């Protein structure tokens, strides 16, 4: 199993790391662009506030880069392998907002972080790509 896991192409590993970083940036920028909008605000007011926030444009820029990078990752790896890695951005967002709020990390949050890390570790041990069936088992159609 370790042998299979070690076969992940370096480009996919790099792509997954970039995806987590960009996902974190998108989430933080998006949070900032909608922060301070009153709960009862109408759609029109919400739109005006969001479109007026520089964070919204930062979020869109990061979203575009994220899309480009994510398509490259998905070209290499299974969706059910790659997508759970984005859970690491939850941890990054948690860490960044905790630093900003100067809060102590509670025991529950620490346990949650450990569980997410364990989950991503388990998935990283699975084959990153479902192999196509053997040629003699299923006859592939000509290209």
């Amino acid at each position, binding site marked *: 199993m370790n042998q299979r896991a070690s076969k992940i192409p370096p480009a996919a590993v790099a792509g997954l790391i970039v995806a987590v970083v960009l996902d974190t940036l998108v989430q933080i920028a998006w949070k900032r662009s909608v922060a301070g909008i009153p709960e009862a605000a109408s759609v029109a007011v919400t739109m005006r506030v969001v479109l007026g926030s520089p964070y919204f444009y930062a979020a869109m820029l990061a979203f575009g880069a994220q899309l480009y990078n994510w398509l490259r990752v998905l070209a290499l790896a*299974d969706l059910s392998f790659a997508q759970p890695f984005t859970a690491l951005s939850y941890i990054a967002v948690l860490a960044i907002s905790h630093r900003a709020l100067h809060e102590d990390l509670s025991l529950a949050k620490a346990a949650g972080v450990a569980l997410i890390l364990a989950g991503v570790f388990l998935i990283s041990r699975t084959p990153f790509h479902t192999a196509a069936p053997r040629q003699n088992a299923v006859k592939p159609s000509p290209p």
Partner: protein
Amino acid sequence: MTPKSAGILLVLAAVIVESFAQLSLKVGASGRPGPAAGLLGRLAAGRRAGFPPAAWIAAGVALYVIEIVLYTLALHRLEVSVAFPLGSLCFVGVALLSRLLLAERVGTVRWLGVCCIIVGTVFTAL
């Protein structure tokens, strides 16, 4: 409907939309799905429904935008400690759809990993 139950429905709708967005991006990114690529892959490669990869990617992006709107609306009605773990159900949705429609092999270890992540997000939101 109370704001809370409306919020829960919005998050669940966002989860379903996001799962299909990911699926659509995967089909678009794969370009030419192999013979084992499942129902959706065969549809994408098939002669009857031969949408080009760009169409799948565009559909994925459109679904993503819808997801962001749904989730943002939900956050207005729910506490983060409820919305966040519910939103992480998209890991289940993606694993299920990858298994059913893309014929990806989702084994016990991968499911276990998904379960750990979901329980983990419940704890981080406490």
